C-alpha cells in the first residue's frame, strides 16, 4: 500500500513536470518568434536596398573577408552541435560531459566574436564605419550596405554575447546540480536560443559575404 502511494506521488510529480516543461518551452519559442521578426524586419530592409542597388552591394560585399565569414559559419554550426549534445548528455546523467560540451560551445562563441571583432577592426582601420567620411564619399548603395552590415552583424554579435552569458549560467547550474536528468528544461531553452543565433547567421552569411 505504501508502495502504491509512492507510485501515485511519482506520477503526480511527472505530470507537473511535463506541464511546466511545455509552458517553459512555449515561452521560449514565442520569444524566438519575436526575435525572428526582429531580424526579419532588417532582412526585408536589406532586400529592399539590395534590390535598388545591386551593383553597389556586389562591390561592397567583395571587401568582406569571405574565408573568415565561412570559418565563422562553421564555428557556429559546430557550436550548435556541441550544445545539442550537451543537452543529450545531461538527460543521460552525464553531467561532466554536459559541462565540457557547454564550455566547448562557449569557447566557439567567443572565437566567433573574436573573429567578428577582428573583421570590424580591419574595416574601421580602413576608415569604413557608419558615418565615416571615407564611407560617405562612396556610392550610395555601398553606404547602405555597410550600414546594414554593421547593424545586423552587430546586433547578431550582441545576441551571441548574451547567449554565451546564458550558457555560462547553465554551466553553473549544472555544477550545482540544479540541472540534472529530472530537470533540464532551462538548458533546453538555452540551447534553443543558441540555435536561433546560429540560424540568423546562416542567413547573414550568404547575404553579406556571397553577393555575386
Amino acid at each position: 500500500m505504501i508502495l502504491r502511494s509512492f507510485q501515485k506521488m511519482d506520477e503526480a510529480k511527472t505530470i507537473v513536470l511535463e506541464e511546466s516543461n511545455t509552458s517553459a518551452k512555449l515561452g521560449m519559442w514565442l520569444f524566438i518568434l519575436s526575435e525572428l521578426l526582429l531580424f526579419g524586419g532588417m532582412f526585408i530592409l536589406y532586400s529592399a536596398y539590395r534590390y535598388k542597388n545591386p551593383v553597389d552591394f556586389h562591390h561592397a560585399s567583395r571587401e568582406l573577408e569571405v574565408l573568415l565569414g565561412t570559418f565563422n559559419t562553421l564555428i557556429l554550426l559546430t557550436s550548435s552541435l556541441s550544445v545539442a549534445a550537451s543537452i543529450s548528455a545531461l538527460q543521460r546523467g552525464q553531467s561532466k560531459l554536459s559541462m565540457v560540451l557547454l564550455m566547448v560551445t562557449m569557447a566557439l562563441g567567443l572565437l566567433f566574436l573574436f573573429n567578428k571583432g577582428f573583421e570590424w577592426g580591419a574595416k574601421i582601420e580602413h576608415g569604413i564605419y557608419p558615418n565615416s567620411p571615407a564611407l560617405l564619399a562612396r556610392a550610395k548603395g555601398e553606404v547602405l550596405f555597410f550600414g546594414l552590415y554593421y547593424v545586423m552583424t552587430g546586433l547578431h554579435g550582441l545576441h551571441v554575447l548574451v547567449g554565451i552569458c546564458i550558457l555560462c549560467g547553465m554551466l553553473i547550474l549544472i555544477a550545482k546540480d540544479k540541472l540534472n536528468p529530472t530537470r533540464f528544461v532551462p538548458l533546453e531553452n538555452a540551447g534553443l536560443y543558441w540555435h536561433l543565433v546560429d540560424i540568423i547567421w546562416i542567413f547573414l552569411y550568404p547575404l553579406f559575404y556571397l553577393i555575386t
Partner: protein
Amino acid sequence: MEPEKKPHGTEYRTYTLVWMGLVVLTGLTFSVAGMELGGWTVLIALAIAGTKSGLVLNYFMHLRSERLLIFRVIIPLVMAVFLVFVLLTFADLAFRGGAR
C-alpha cells in the same frame, strides 16, 4: 516533454550526421557563389540557407520530435507572416516610379 527513448549513442549520431550535412551545405553555398549564375545565385543561396535552417530547427531544436501541434505550427506560421511582409514590400517597391 520526455526525450525519445532511443538507445544510447543514437542521438549523438543523429546530431553528428546533421552537422555533417550542414557543413556540406555551407561548402555548397560557397561554391555556388563562385559560379556565374546571375539572378539564380541569390535564390539558390536562400534555398540552401532555408534547408540548413530546416535541419537546425528539426533536429537540433527537436521540432521533428515535438508532438504538440502548437510547436509544429509556430515556425511555419512565422515564415508565412514574414513572407507576407516580403511580398507586400516588394509589391510596393517593384511598382514605384522614378529612380531611387
